Each structure stands twice: as C-alpha cells, then as structure tokens.
C-alpha cells in the first residue's frame, strides 16, 4: 500500500481545474430564465463554449463533446477504460444505421459522436455486410439486428435486441472493472435498463419468456423473477422492486418512465459526487465525463426548448441535477 501505483494524479489535478468551469445548477437556472436561444448562446460563449463565434448552437454542442474526448485522450492516452460509456453511442449508431439502410434514407443527423468507432465505419460495415473492421460483439449485434429487420420489418424488436447487447456489454464491464465507481455505474445502468424493459413489456402485455430474453444479466436484480412479474402486470413489477435496492425508484416509476429516468440520472450524479474527494483514481475522470455529458444534454434541451418557444416549466421538469 505504501508504494501503490497511482496513475491518475496528473489527470485528476487537471480535471479539478476543469470542474470549476462546469455549469452549476444556478447557471442552468439562469439559462432557463433567458428569453431566447441567442441569449443562451451568448452566455455559453462567455463561459468559453465553442471556439468560434460563427458556430451554430448544434456545432457548439458538438465541439464541447469532441473537446471532452480529446481532453480524455490527452490525459490517459488509451480510452478503453471508458468503453462502458463510449460503447453506448456505438449501439445507438448501430440502431440508426440499421434503420437508415432498411428504409434507404440518410442517418447522418442521427449519428452520435464519442463512440469507440466512427459512425461511418459502423454504417459501411452494415451496408457492405463486411464486419471485419468491428469487434465480435458489435459485429454480431449489427448482423443480427440487420437480419431481424430484413426478416420481420419490426423496428422495436431490432431495438430490443440492440439494447440487450448494450446492457450485456456494460453489465459485463461491471464484473471486470477495477474501480468501484465504474462497477456501481455499470450495475445501475444495466439494472435501470432492465427495469425500463420490464415496464414497457408489461404495458405491451408481453410474455415472461419474451421479457426474459430482452433483459441482461445483473447482480442487483433477479431478471427471472422480474420477467415473471412483468408478465403479470405493472403492479407486480413495483411489488418486486420494493424488495430490491431500487425501492426508492418505485414512486418515480409509478409516475412515468421519464420520471424514473430522471431519478436514475440524479442517482448517478449523487454517486459521482463522491469522487470530489478522491485525488488518485480514475473515478474523478469518469465523474467529469458524466458531468460534462449531463451538462451538454441540459444545454441541448434548453436550446431546443427556446427555439420551439416551450415554457420554462417544461424545461425544469426535464432538467437533471448538475455535478457542481
């Protein structure tokens, strides 16, 4: 213990400086109160967002996202430690690519950056049926999803398959990660994904077998019990969850799935705050990535709402807790 390896001292010290520039709940409240999207953009530019005055609001968000990953690359070199976060974008891009190829439309505007693979690589691999440039788990998922959509034309089934692959990947990451924060995040991500699947399937009156096949293995939930509960109905899911670590989530699930998603995001943010006092591990870097992504999502929501003249109350209802 005296001579333990501490690889992240430099990175965490830099991240602490960056954290002081993150938007706080107070800053977000100021953005919500602004009268239009131009005022929001001006405020963001004053806070150092975007590297050019000519950038559109979409470009500002993109440059922040790109800046986040290029900073991480600079700090740690190998980004594979963050694959549990990045791969979520890859699975999203598989969904977009499969549907775009099936409907013969452009998916350019649907792709997300910040994945392990470039969206072009995923798109071209699926289109040309040449999966050699993708790792086995992504290639198998993309191939199966394309096969399902071509055979059944069922986009939901295709999404369910890709979601399960994503949950399985992140869940497996929880079992191998060295860092406790990463393990907790991955476990919560998989469990919350399973809960959402169970609730949706209960509403669609799917069979226990179908629900079970859609869910991914996780330690904090018994997916067999939950799939049986989902087949019996929504109340049975809530009764089961009351016996698990997620009993506090039940009241939010009863409200709506989006309220549950907000509870999950705020729960994750609480988890991340524990990293504010850790100067040595990868935890503060993970916390910063999640904090920055939450911030970017919040700004995107505010800009979209302002551009569509939505009331402030609608934004406040959806906005998540910030890290600082």
């Amino acid at each position: 213990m005296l001579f333990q390896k501490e690889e992240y001292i430099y990175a965490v010290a830099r991240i602490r400086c960056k954290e002081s520039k993150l938007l706080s709940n107070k800053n977000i409240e100021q953005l919500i109160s602004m009268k239009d999207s131009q005022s929001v953009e001006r405020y963001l530019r004053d806070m150092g967002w975007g590297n050019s005055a000519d950038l559109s609001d979409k470009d500002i968000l993109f440059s922040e996202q790109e800046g986040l990953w290029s900073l991480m690359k600079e700090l740690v070199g190998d980004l594979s430690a963050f694959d549990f976060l990045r791969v979520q974008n890859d699975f999203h891009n598989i969904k977009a690519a499969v549907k775009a190829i099936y409907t013969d439309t452009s998916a350019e505007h649907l792709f997300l950056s910040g994945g392990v693979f470039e969206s072009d690589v995923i798109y071209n691999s699926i289109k040309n049926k040449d999966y050699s440039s993708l790792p086995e788990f992504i290639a198998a998922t993309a191939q199966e999803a394309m096969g399902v959509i071509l055979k059944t034309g069922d986009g939901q089934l295709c999404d369910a398959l890709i979601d399960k692959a994503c949950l399985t990947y992140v869940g497996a990451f929880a079992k191998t990660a060295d860092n406790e924060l990463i393990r907790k995040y991955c476990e919560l991500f998989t469990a919350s994904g399973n809960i959402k699947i169970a609730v949706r399937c209960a509403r669609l009156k799917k069979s226990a077998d179908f629900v079970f096949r859609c869910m991914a293995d996780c330690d904090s939930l018994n997916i067999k019990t939950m799939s049986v509960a989902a087949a019996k109905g929504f109340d049975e899911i809530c009764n089961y969850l009351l016996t698990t670590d997620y009993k506090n989530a039940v009241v939010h699930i009863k409200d709506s799935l989006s309220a549950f998603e907000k509870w999950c995001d705020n729960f994750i943010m609480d988890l991340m705050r524990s990293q504010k006092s850790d100067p040595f591990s990868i935890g503060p870097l993970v916390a910063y990535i999640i904090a920055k992504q939450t911030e970017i999502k919040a700004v995107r929501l505010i800009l979209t709402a302002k551009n569509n003249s939505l009331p402030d109350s609608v934004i406040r209802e959806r906005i998540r807790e910030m890290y600082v």
Partner: protein
Amino acid sequence: MSGLFLAILGAAFATFMAGIGSSIGVGKAGVAAAGVLSEEPSLFSKVLILMLLPATQGIYGLLVAFLTLQAVGVIGEPVGDISVAKGALYLAASLPIAFSGLISAIHQGKCSVAGINTVSKKPDQMGKALIIPAMVETYAILALLISILAINGIKVLAI
C-alpha cells in the same frame, strides 16, 4: 564489525530512507502540481509550497546523519575509537527518523496532492489546504527530536 561502521550505517539509513520518502512524496505532489499548472499557471506559488512540504523529511534525515558523523569524529573534531556497543546505539538512534521520515513523507505527499486539488478549485482555501499535510509533519518532527536527543545522549556515555 567496528563501532564506527555501525554508526556510519545509521547515518546512511537516516539519509537514504528519509530521502526516499521525500522523493516519493515530492514526486507525487509534483505530478499533481504540473497538472494544475497546465490549466492555471497563476497558481504556481501556491502549489509550489504544497509540493515542497514532503521535502522536509529528507532534510531531517540529512541533519541526523550530520550529527552522527560529527559525534563519531568522521567530520569535525576526532573522538578516538568507537566501541561496537556505542556504534550500535548510534545506529539505533538514527532509526526513528529513518522509518518515520520514509512513511510520513509518502503520506504527506498524498495529503499534498489532495491539497493541490483543493487549491486548484478554491485558491482562497490555501490556508486550510496547507494545514492538513502539515499535520503529518508533526510525526517526522517527533522522530527527529528523538534521534537528536539520542545522539547527544550517546555521545557522553562511557562505553
């Protein structure tokens, strides 16, 4: 084995063990300081103080080594033959600062890293950030005190 050899071994222990601790402590704090300075160069003076805190154990080790060498006549006035028993006592006298210096410097380095993190976010909290690693210093000072008292005591023993 002569008494002089044991005494010099003690002086060497005090120097290199406390020195190793300080170099590890300052190294860790230095890495954190470099991280902060790459973002906020204006914090140089603040992070420098925090970074140098774990360096003191190395100086304490050096001081004990000097006193030992002086006591056995390697530097300064010659003192004649040193018995094996006296040499062993000088070796024992150097151990408090050797071990305490090694361990306290490493832990002080960790506290300094945490303090540098605090200052990078809240520069106005420099005073508090400085006090926390300084608490670790107490135990190095206690060890230094015992080593110095022991060396001075052994010097006048007729063995």
